[in-house]
Structures are given as structure tokens and as C-alpha cells.
């Protein structure tokens, strides 16, 4: 195989930068990492062929700086830029800047990015193609009286959404008409702060839908295929925690219909490269288009494992102008894949971020276990970027075996020094609704209600006491605080430096 490029710059960090570096290495493409001052020791820097510093830790001064990224690409002679996800991945101006600098942007054409970035415009395209959308308006509501009338038409409860939104910001669920005005105010304020555009629109709220998305690939020669769906209903505050493919709620016929809808949408906006159409699916199996993500998704590996197709490799081939070389009839699905997101968050404290040094890291391995990680033992997770550390992905011939395999793999995973989502992921995996495939976007609320006693309390107490005991034997402990009175001078076993028996 002749590499489609000789050198590529990855305008990202963390596990996705590592993912792209690995694909490039396998294709014979030299890689350029960029890094902020917080990321000199990040894994993507260690693994790349070259690494270029691009400024201070805050992303606005580094990973979001078009100027520095283009300069780094020029300085290293890179021919192409992969934006990963997040940061500048769906920023049409960045794609423009790459083109201007003579760099191939690994993603859709700027026009398609723009067409899909405006959620209202995307809704209108969908509606015009006969792809169902959630009932609501296809234009921003600026007037509160209009909003009240529309909400009545659509029917409460309604959802307010930012026109340029994503990631849950600027979203508000409104149950009663008297709450509408206040919700409009806060939604507009959040949207303005987050996206520089305060416009919001109104949609009917679907209770407990599934969140299902379709992966598409389109080449620059007019071929578009879909690679089936991903079930992404396990979310907390609109952040996905577990994804899988196929969806237990999608059969071959629904897959065909949703896939065809996604391909029609892509073709209509001149989409090229990898993209994802997001849908809500209600309990009756009706689906509603939400938006198109003009980038590689975090959860792309589950699609890779059931189709056997390397999506990053396909992105690079497509961006280089190659033809897909296969049609929809060549896409076959085999088995079931599940992904769990290993985030630096403390699920026991409301998912509080948990940056810091990883003192111990033991990743699962063995048959059909894939770990896409951006961290290593001894690495310090910086406080500046998102909490995703790694993605644990498994494949098995069927969903039941995949759930069992993921459960096994999570049991082997240990991250010490900071907290991770591993315990809550295991609780989800063992929840009867998850096991049965009864998934919807309200799942996490049901989980929070379930009290789950730990199974290994005694072992944990023993391990903690042994660690304390061995530590006491090694060190002279600090004296107790001086304010506590006469007890302070009494028997202090452990202070002699030798271990008391």
C-alpha cells in the first residue's frame, strides 16, 4: 500500500491523538503531535514521530489556536491535519485555514461542516428529504410570545435547544407553560456564552427515548455507505458513558431505514469523509433526526469491531481522494461490541473531576479486549482538558457474551491515585435493565436510585488496614496535633520507627 500522505499533524491530544498516530504508523505516515505546556509528557507526544509545542495549557491558547496549528504543520512539512473530535474538529474556519495553507483537512468540506453546524438548517434539510425530525420549529424563536404559542402547538413538555449547540449546553426541559419564560432566558444565556450565538429553538420532548446514531462514510466520488448504528442511550448530563453496536432496539429493517436516511442526508449536503447522524428512537421504534456530527465520534471503535473496518484509515484514504472501493452490499456486521468510557471522575462524589497523578494502572487484556488509552502509569492527568482517559471496548459473538466480557474486563481494570468511572460502569453493566437491553436516556436516573452495596467491603478493609500497618512499620508518623490535650503524650505505638507487633 502506498501511504496517502507522507506526514500528518494531529490537532488534538489524549486517546484520540494516540488513535490517529497508531493508524498513521500502520499506514506508513509520519506523525506530528502538538502539545500545550500541560502536555509535554502526554502519551500522544511520546508516541508521535515529531512533537511541536503550541503554547500554554488553556486550550484557547493552544489546541484551539488555528494560527499555531497551521504554523506547526508548515514547520514540520505535514501535508494533512487530523482534528480528532472536539477542539477544532467541527470548526469550518479551521478547515478553511487548512485549505488556504495547502493542508488536507481530514474531515468533510467546510460547506458541509457549516451546513450541519447550524442545527436548524440541518433540521430543514432532513425535513425536506422526508427524514423525520422531532416535532417542533425549524427556526430560532426570538419572541417569547411566539415561543409560548409554538410550545402549545408542539405540546408540553418541550425541549429548548441551542441552534449552534452541542454537549447539552443551552438545553432546557420545560414541563409547564409558566416555566417557559425563565427557561428561555437561561438557555439563551448559556448558549450565548458557550457558542457565541444565543439562538434557541423548541422541540417536543420525547420521554425516555433511545439515543441511536448511524455511522456513514462518503468518498469524494459520490459513494456513500452506512456502517450501521450505535446505541448511545447510557448518558449522564448528555455525556455518553457506554455505547454499543448493534443496538438491542434496532432490527435489520430499522437499521436499513435509518441508514438510508443518514446516507440521503449526507448526500444532500455534499458530505465527504466519516460522519454520524444522531437520532432519537421512541418506544414504538419511530426515529427522529437530531443532528449530524461532522467528525469522528469518540465511540467509533464499536462500529470498527462489528464491521472490521478501520474508520481512521478510511478517513485518511477518503481525504486523499481515494474511492471507498466497496458499496453498501459489502458492509456486513458480525457480533456485538460495547465501549465503556474510563473517565477521571469520581462517581461517588457526583462525578467530580479527578485530575492528578496515576500511581498505578492495570489495564485489562486478553481475548477481544481493546483498550484505547491516552494515559499511562506515572502520568499526571492535567486539569485543563476533558476527563476521558481511555475507552475500553470488547467484542463477542453476541450481546450476552459481550456484556459478560466487559464485566470481566472492568474487573481487571485498576486506576490508582485518581478516581475513575470504573465502579459505576460495572454497576451499569450488572443492572437488570442493561443486561436485558432496556436502554433509554433516563437509565442513569434509575441507576442512581438503586442502592448497590459493595461485595468486597471486608477485603477492602483488610487491604486498607494492611497498607496502613506496613506504612507504620516503614515510617515515623507525624506527632498528633498539639491541641488535643494530655492524650497526646500517651502510648504512641508506631512512632519508634520499627513495627509494633
Amino acid at each position: 500500500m502506498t501511504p496517502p500522505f507522507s506526514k500528518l499533524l494531529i490537532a488534538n491530544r489524549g486517546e484520540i491523538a494516540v488513535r490517529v498516530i497508531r493508524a498513521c504508523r500502520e499506514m506508513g505516515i509520519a506523525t506530528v503531535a502538538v502539545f500545550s505546556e500541560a502536555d509535554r509528557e502526554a502519551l500522544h507526544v511520546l508516541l508521535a514521530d515529531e512533537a511541536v509545542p503550541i503554547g500554554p495549557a488553556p486550550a484557547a491558547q493552544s489546541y484551539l489556536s488555528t494560527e499555531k496549528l497551521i504554523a506547526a504543520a508548515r514547520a514540520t512539512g505535514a501535508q494533512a491535519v487530523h482534528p480528532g473530535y472536539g477542539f477544532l474538529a467541527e470548526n469550518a474556519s479551521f478547515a478553511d485555514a487548512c485549505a488556504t495553507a495547502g493542508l488536507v483537512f481530514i474531515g468533510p468540506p467546510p460547506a458541509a461542516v457549516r451546513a450541519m453546524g447550524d442545527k436548524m438548517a440541518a433540521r430543514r434539510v432532513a425535513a425536506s428529504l422526508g427524514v423525520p425530525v422531532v416535532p417542533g420549529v425549524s427556526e430560532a424563536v426570538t419572541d417569547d410570545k411566539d415561543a409560548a404559542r409554538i410550545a402549545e402547538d408542539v405540546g408540553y413538555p418541550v425541549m429548548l435547544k441551542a441552534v449552534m449547540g452541542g454537549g447539552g449546553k443551552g438545553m432546557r426541559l420545560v414541563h409547564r407553560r409558566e416555566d417557559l419564560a425563565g427557561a428561555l432566558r437561561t438557555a439563551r444565556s448559556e448558549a450565548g456564552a458557550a457558542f457565541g450565538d444565543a439562538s434557541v429553538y423548541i422541540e417536543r420532548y420525547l420521554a425516555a427515548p433511545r439515543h441511536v446514531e448511524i455511522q456513514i462514510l462518503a468518498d469524494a466520488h459520490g459513494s456513500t455507505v452506512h456502517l450501521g448504528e450505535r446505541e448511545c442511550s447510557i448518558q449522564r448530563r448528555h455525556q455518553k458513558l457506554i455505547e454499543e453496536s448493534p443496538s438491542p432496539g434496532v432490527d435489520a429493517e430499522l437499521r436499513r431505514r435509518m441508514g438510508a436516511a443518514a446516507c440521503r442526508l449526507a448526500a444532500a449536503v455534499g458530505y465527504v469523509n466519516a460522519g454520524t447522524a444522531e437520532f432519537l428512537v421512541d418506544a414504538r421504534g419511530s426515529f427522529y433526526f437530531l443532528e449530524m456530527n461532522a467528525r469522528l465520534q469518540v465511540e467509533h471503535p464499536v462500529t470498527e469491531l462489528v464491521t472490521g473496518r478501520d474508520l481512521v484509515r478510511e478517513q485518511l484514504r477518503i481525504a486523499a481522494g481515494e474511492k471507498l472501493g466497496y458499496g453498501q452490499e459489502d458492509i456486513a456486521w458480525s457480533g456485538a461490541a460495547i465501549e465503556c468510557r474510563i473517565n477521571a471522575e469520581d462517581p461517588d462524589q457526583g462525578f467530580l473531576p479527578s485530575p492528578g497523578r496515576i500511581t498505578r494502572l492495570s489495564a485489562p487484556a486478553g481475548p477481544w479486549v481493546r483498550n484505547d488509552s491516552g494515559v499511562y502509569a506515572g502520568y499526571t492527568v492535567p486539569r485543563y482538558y476533558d476527563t476521558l482517559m481511555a475507552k475500553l471496548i470488547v467484542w463477542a459473538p453476541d450481546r450476552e457474551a459481550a456484556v459478560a466480557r466487559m464485566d470481566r474486563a472492568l474487573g481487571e481494570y485498576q486506576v490508582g491515585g485518581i478516581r475513575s468511572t470504573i465502579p459505576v460502569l460495572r454497576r451499569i453493566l450488572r443492572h437488570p435493565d442493561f443486561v436485558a437491553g432496556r436502554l433509554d436516556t433516563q437509565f442513569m436516573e434509575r441507576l442512581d436510585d438503586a442502592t448497590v452495596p459493595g461485595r468486597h467491603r471486608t477485603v477492602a478493609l483488610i487491604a486498607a488496614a494492611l497498607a496502613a500497618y506496613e506504612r507504620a512499620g516503614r515510617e515515623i508518623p507525624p506527632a498528633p496535633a498539639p491541641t488535643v490535650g494530655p492524650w497526646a503524650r500517651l502510648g504512641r505505638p508506631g512512632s519508634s520507627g520499627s513495627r509494633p507487633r
Partner: protein
Amino acid sequence: MKFETQLDGAVVPVEVTGDGSRYRVTLGGNALEVDARPTGAGGWSLLLGRASFAAGVSEEEGGVFVVDVDGETYSIRVEEETRYIIRTRGGGAAARGQILKAPMPGRVVMVEVTVGQAVAPGDGLVILEAMKMENEFKASVAGTVKEIRVEAGQAVNPGDVLVVVE
């Protein structure tokens, strides 16, 4: 050596004796023979009789040991028994106020209270941003805001005192 362990509010006395790899651990009155070997970087292999466990133990501030075992995580405070007695007697009349400390490195987005303000449990005190997430920290007691030691935009480190409520 005798310890008091605290997990989810329960205090369990644990006594450990032994050496090298063979220990006797008495836990809530039950004596267990434990064959325990450190496996590096805070890892322990424990054999309780024949039952085998691979536990990871990390020490945090304040004598808290975080134990990972079989996909579960436990935060356990372990204190040498005498110290525990001293602390709980000496601090028997512990101030009923709240000293809110930063649990993680981050940046102050907003201070939601002013000095002198009365707060009730659950009232928001400070919003901290870290890793692109905003996290609100709330009052755990009813009282009056006595001190505010940070301002919006300021970077904080774990353990930094943010707000004092009396």
C-alpha cells in the same frame, strides 16, 4: 497494631499482627489469616484462606486509603486506635461549621455567597471548574459565611480553603 477503619460512616476496629507475608487480621471480632504480598505500585495479592483477591491501595491525604478490588472502589479512613480515640475525644465538641476545601485542582468560576450571609444546607457556595466541567459546592450546615478566601477566576489547589461557614 490496632486501627479504627471508617467506611461510609461505619467505624470498624481492625487489629493487624504478623510479618512479611503472613498476617492475622482481626476485624469486628473475627480473626482471619491473610497471606498478603505487595505486587508493586500499591498492588496487593491477598489470600484469605484460598480466596484470592488482587487489590490496589492508594493513600490519600488524611489517612484515607482508596482500595480498588474487582471493579469496586472503597475510600477507607484508617487511624491507629489511640489516635482515633484522641481525635474523637479531643474533637468531641467539633465545631459545627464547615470549612469548604477544594477537593481538586481547578479554577473558581463563581463565589455564590458574601461574608455575613446566612446559608442553609444545600445552598450553593462556590462553583469550581476543572476538566471542562463546572462543579457546584454546597453548604453542608446551616450557618453564616465567616470567610471567603478565593475570588472568581482564581486557580486553586486541592486542600485550599475556599469558604468558611460558622
